[in-house]
């Protein structure tokens, strides 16, 4: 009997003791941030894939690369305006195919080697000469999006050559004029790495075998990423932490933090609790329903990132009567876009007037708009001479949440209800997002109408309306030479003012022609501790932590 009583008490005492002791230890974080620059821990959604900008396209790889690397140009904080970075100035020749960049002097890579024209050309030539598995879209998506093909010429490439005319001047030659080239150079993927480190740590070394694909064997992208940025690499333990420290030899304004640590926490609720407990100082992509919790806590703050996406309803013109403009206008008038954005975006959405976010150059305020008006929709259908109610096959995806449509099913239901009031009869269809739904949308077999959208890759109108409407695609099923030509012109025009005009014109034309109906831009939210200062959210998400500081201790 005695024994049994003891047994019962002992473990309880042990647990109690553990908690008591934990109390004495105190929270591990509180005393750390009071030192001068301090450490900032940022919660990320996952580990990076690799720390080599040329070979990744996922946001959680680009985020740390942005802190350690710089490109020839960058975007002004919080905007999509191209400003100097490693190049101090640039100009294109009259034909728009040859771009001369003057490089910044006295810049050193983190390994102490010199940044110069040869280093720039080394990087461009490395990208252009990628072979085999490096040509996969999952590796070099951005090179292929911006430049097309590689040196093996299987597909044409925009890139022709790179010449170092002197130590600090570099000329990049293109095969045809492109104006979106400059904006694209601000991409994290085209940041300049130390040629010596790339070679020494085998950035491109690896073996390919049939079964397992490419197996990198070098340690560059995991242990030795070497750029010129305000932070430099310290260590990376997967699933645990990625540590960077201040680069004391940085050429520009030095980082305010001593150390910057990225910690992967995949679960949204867990990230929020880690922020509340002070284990992390901030995290990205706060869920809409958590915004209020953070706003209601004095020790926390919410930062808004400008919208850089668009959700839209595809109209497939291949099938009659959707080739008639009146019918498309009736669709637009029959979609209650205000209600959808107000109800299902947790206060993070705005109604889209066009197919690109307002922050981009070339955005036109004065496009044709289509307010919700069931009566007008009906009269338009009448004018088009179709029998009402007009049956429409309307598709939506299941099992997916995208920034531009957090809950597709609810968007669909609301749209279906408003269309049914406007002279249409919606026949619902759905499919799992991937691959069925995406495949159908792509091939143009997802009904007359479907829900889809896009998040921009880089700050250029060509990356929005150029992607959608520059050439024939089965998704929309129309050929509009006027629009195609205009977008071709826009892509090639080197003069910025002229270019902006062309895209404004294109936006007006698109909203008159109505190949689809844009309805939402969503603003992602970031959560931070209240004492974090200097973080400037940017639409393209490549924010720098260099100006960030933790004010006034804990």
């Amino acid at each position, binding site marked *: 009997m005695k024994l049994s009583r003891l*047994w019962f008490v002992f473990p309880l005492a042990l647990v109690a003791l553990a908690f008591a002791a934990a109390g004495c230890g105190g929270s591990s974080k509180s005393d750390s941030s009071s030192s001068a620059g301090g450490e900032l821990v940022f919660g990320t959604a996952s580990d990076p894939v690799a720390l080599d900008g040329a070979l990744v396209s996922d946001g959680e790889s680009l985020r740390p690369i942005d802190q350690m690397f710089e490109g020839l140009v960058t975007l002004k904080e919080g905007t999509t305006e191209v400003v100097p970075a490693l190049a101090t100035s640039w100009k294109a020749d009259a034909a728009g195919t040859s771009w001369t960049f003057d490089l910044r002097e006295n810049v050193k890579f983190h390994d102490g080697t010199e940044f110069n024209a040869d280093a720039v050309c080394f990087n461009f030539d490395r990208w252009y000469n990628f072979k085999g598995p490096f040509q996969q879209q999952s590796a070099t998506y951005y090179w292929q999006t911006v430049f097309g093909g590689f040196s093996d010429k299987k597909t044409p490439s925009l890139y022709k050559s790179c010449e170092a005319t002197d130590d600090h001047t570099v000329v990049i030659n293109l095969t045809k004029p492109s104006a979106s080239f400059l904006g694209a150079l601000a991409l994290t993927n085209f940041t300049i790495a130390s040629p010596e480190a790339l070679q020494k740590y085998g950035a491109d070394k690896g073996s390919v075998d049939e079964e397992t694909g*490419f197996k990198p064997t070098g340690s560059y992208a995991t242990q030795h990423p070497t750029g010129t940025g305000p932070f430099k690499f310290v260590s990376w333990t997967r699933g645990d932490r990625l540590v960077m420290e201040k680069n004391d030899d940085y050429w520009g304004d030095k980082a305010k933090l001593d150390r910057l640590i990225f*910690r992967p926490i*995949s679960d949204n609720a867990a990230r929020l609790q880690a922020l509340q407990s002070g284990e992390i100082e901030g995290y990205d992509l706060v869920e809409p329903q958590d915004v209020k919790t953070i706003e209601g806590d004095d020790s926390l703050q919410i930062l808004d990132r400008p919208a850089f996406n668009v959700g839209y309803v595809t109209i497939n013109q291949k099938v009659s009567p959707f080739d008639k403009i009146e019918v498309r206008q009736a669709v637009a008038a029959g979609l209650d876009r205000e209600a959808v954005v107000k109800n299902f975006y947790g206060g993070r959405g705005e109604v889209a007037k066009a197919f690109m976010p307002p922050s981009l150059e070339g955005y036109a305020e004065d496009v044709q708009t289509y307010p919700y008006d069931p009566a007008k929709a009906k009269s338009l259908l009448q004018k088009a001479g179709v029998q009402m109610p007009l049956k429409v096959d309307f598709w939506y995806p299941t099992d997916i949440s995208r920034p531009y449509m957090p809950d597709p099913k609810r968007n669909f239901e609301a749209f279906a209800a408003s269309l049914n009031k406007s002279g249409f009869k919606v026949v619902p269809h759905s499919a799992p997002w*991937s691959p069925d739904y995406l495949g159908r949308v792509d091939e143009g077999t997802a009904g007359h109408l479907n829900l889809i959208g896009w998040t921009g890759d880089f700050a250029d109108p060509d990356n929005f309306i150029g992607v959608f409407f520059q050439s024939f695609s089965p998704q929309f099923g129309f050929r509009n030479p006027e629009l195609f030509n205009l977008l071709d012109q826009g892509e090639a025009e080197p003069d910025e003012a002229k270019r902006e005009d062309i895209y404004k014109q294109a936006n007006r034309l698109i909203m008159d022609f109505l190949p689809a109906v844009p309805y939402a831009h969503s603003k992602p939210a970031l959560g931070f501790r209240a004492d974090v200062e200097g973080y400037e959210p940017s639409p393209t998400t490549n924010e720098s932590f260099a100006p960030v500081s933790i004010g006034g201790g804990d």
Partner: protein
Amino acid sequence: MLRFVIRRLLLLVPILLGLSILVFAWIRALPGGPAEALLGERLTPESRAQIEEQYGLDDPVFVQYWRYVKTTVVDRDLGTSINTRRPVSEELKERFPATIELAVAAMLFAMVLGVPLGYVAAKRYGGPIDQASLVVSLLGVSMPIFFLAILLKYIFAIKLGLLPTVGRMSVLIDIEHPTNFYVLDAIIAGNPEALWDVIKHLILPAIALGSIPLAIVARITRAATLDVQNEDYVRTARAKGLPPRTVDVRHIFRNALLPIATIIGLQTGLLLSGAVLTETVFAWPGMGTWLVEAIDNRNYPVLQGGILFVSLVFVMVNLVVDLSYALINPRIRVS
């Protein structure tokens, strides 16, 4: 005994072979593939073909299976993760210790509390302690881990600031990880601060994960003890005047241990396969989160290697449980 072990180990061959076919077929039956997961909206028919060719996914399934068996068995290579581009075996070496560490901590919690609780409940059959243990174990099994975890974190981390909510150790402490068992790593590093930090990070996840085994262990202990208590030999032992303590330990507890050991073994096996919910909520980089992410990404090599490995562990744990019967109860002969 040795023959028994050898026979059981030989049985592994057909088990693993069958499993590998099932897993192989199952993950290819999932809608979508690595290409869709990698590219999303950016998917084009060409890029899909390119990725499928790269990973040999355009070959007939049986050709793929044969190649997989060959590389696994002959080259002893589990392949390369499609998403991280690292060898699956290397990731396994990082992930499995995290899962073991958490499972051991959770089972310790469950045993240290559950066995005494169940034993005392049985000894005080029908009394208030028995009633209380019933309620506790009912709560343990029925409360969703997810909810329990969030509640624990809210109380002990956010409100009281005593314990951390995520990860295996504070990111502000730096030690080497020769074994990837962080408790061991901290001891090897001779860093008491790190050790204490690692233990603090283990407490909440271990409680959350251990709550269900705790309830089960307590119930089984109670039932087993009640059973044995009424056996003739216990009455005889008492009748011949043995001290109550001797009867408790030698006659009752020892005989009740058999089902307890079984349940503890089986539960450990379960926990070793990775605790998806607990690992997710506590950002614990173990097998559970690894495999779930692999499902989301249709990361075939990780799924194939990971699931096969987990099955192997499960079978081995069962073997150990069977063997431990013989040690606990000499009346059982393994043959």
